[in-house]
């Protein structure tokens, strides 16, 4: 496993009707991520993420909110499961590449 230099900021799109939200990926693995944000997203909802990883832009990464937890500050931590197998493969490759570069 590897680590990015800082938590990865990400745009979160939950609907075409509402303006995009934002947060940070506090953990990322090929099949999913842990996301921290001030904005509330209901469990079971789909979201599309846009973030930068390894110098590449990842757009419209489809994720299902599987868990949502609000901390005492009022921030939410979400567990996300990525749904698109091509996107999972691309993220997996990027994580591997990043690990090789720093290894």
């Amino acid at each position, binding site marked *: *496993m*590897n*680590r990015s230099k800082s938590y990865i*900021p*990400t*745009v*979160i799109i939950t609907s075409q009707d509402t*303006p*995009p*939200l*934002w947060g*940070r990926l*506090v*953990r990322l693995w090929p099949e999913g991520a842990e996301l921290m944000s*001030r904005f509330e997203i209901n469990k079971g909802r789909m979201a599309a993420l*846009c*973030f*930068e990883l390894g110098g590449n832009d990842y757009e419209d990464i489809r994720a299902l909110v599987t868990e949502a937890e609000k*901390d*005492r*500050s*009022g*921030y939410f931590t979400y567990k996300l499961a990525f749904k698109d197998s091509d996107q999972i493969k691309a993220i997996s490759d990027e994580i591997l590449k990043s*690990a090789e570069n*720093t*290894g």
Partner: protein
Amino acid sequence: MFNTVQIITSSEKNRLVLANIFKNLGADAVFSLDLNDTLSIFEKVRPKAVFLVDSEDPPSEIKLRELKRIAPFLPLVVLLKNRDASRAVALMKLGAFDCVQSPWTEEELRPVYKKTLNLDGTPLVIDGEALEKKKNALVISGILAALAVGMAAGWFFASREYNRPQPPPAEIRLPYSHPTGIAPEGDSLVISDWYTQALYTHNASDFSIKSVASLPEETPAGLTASPDALWLQTASGVIEKRLKTAGLKLLAKIKTDRADIAGICHDGLYFWIAYNNNTLSKCLPNDSLTELDRYPYPGKKIAAFACDTRFLWAADPGLKALVKMPLGRPDTLLSSSEIKQYSRKSLKITGLASKNGKIWFTAEDNGTGLVFSENEPK
């Protein structure tokens, strides 16, 4: 403890709105008109977070860069004039902790304010395995107690057996994630953590936390102990000498003017500073840390540094090893012993200490703070 936040805005209207909101949040808000004004009073104010209004001169990008330069770990929040996720993410990439969209309200700002000031404290979580072990230990104790009623004769021997102190596990997960230094103190270990800005005193046998000393004005980047004091290295390159008593009274504050310190240690007589450029500096442990000599480090790279009354030690990620140097000839590599934990690519050793034939390490691994120890290599 004052919850001082510094707010940068040139607009009188914004100032009035924000003053009211932060007052209601219980914050002590100090306003600055621009970046120069901020920097001129920054040292005096010592804010716990800086909130800057976007779309004012100079641009937020420059403000973030300059503030990050002087206070790399200070939470910086940008107050956006409108809800623009792309801009928020761009500013977060530049180091903003978070962005808040207009209209700025108490409800919107409260979570950010609370998060940046960490008013909730760090959750102290025992990991599942340890909790399970503790539960098992309780169950075993209960069974033993029941058996003892019927087996009074065997009780003495049984209790002796079961009460024998268990050796600590080889690697311990810490309930905080960013340890930076470690100093053995009697039957305790003191560990500094930069994120929570605190010193944690652990019981060395079971690693329970005995006490926590919060240092809200400092970002601890390293730690060592001398017989009479704790020495704290801060992220800004200042080395503080503090009493070991409960309040950690500040005895001296020494500016090194260098932020590239890899580690500090006290060998019982002299004070040593290891720099990231692979130099080792031997100093008098006085209030100005007068340098006596300077040596090249004989390994590849210093990640963490320690010493005892006989040797200097360095955790070297270049050699993936613990490097041992004699006190009298620090430019000589006496031995280099493999640190097995370095086989984990995500692991970074952040602190090192040597005491009574044992070498203690603190490390970060994938968001988890760790401590482990090895017997001193021959």
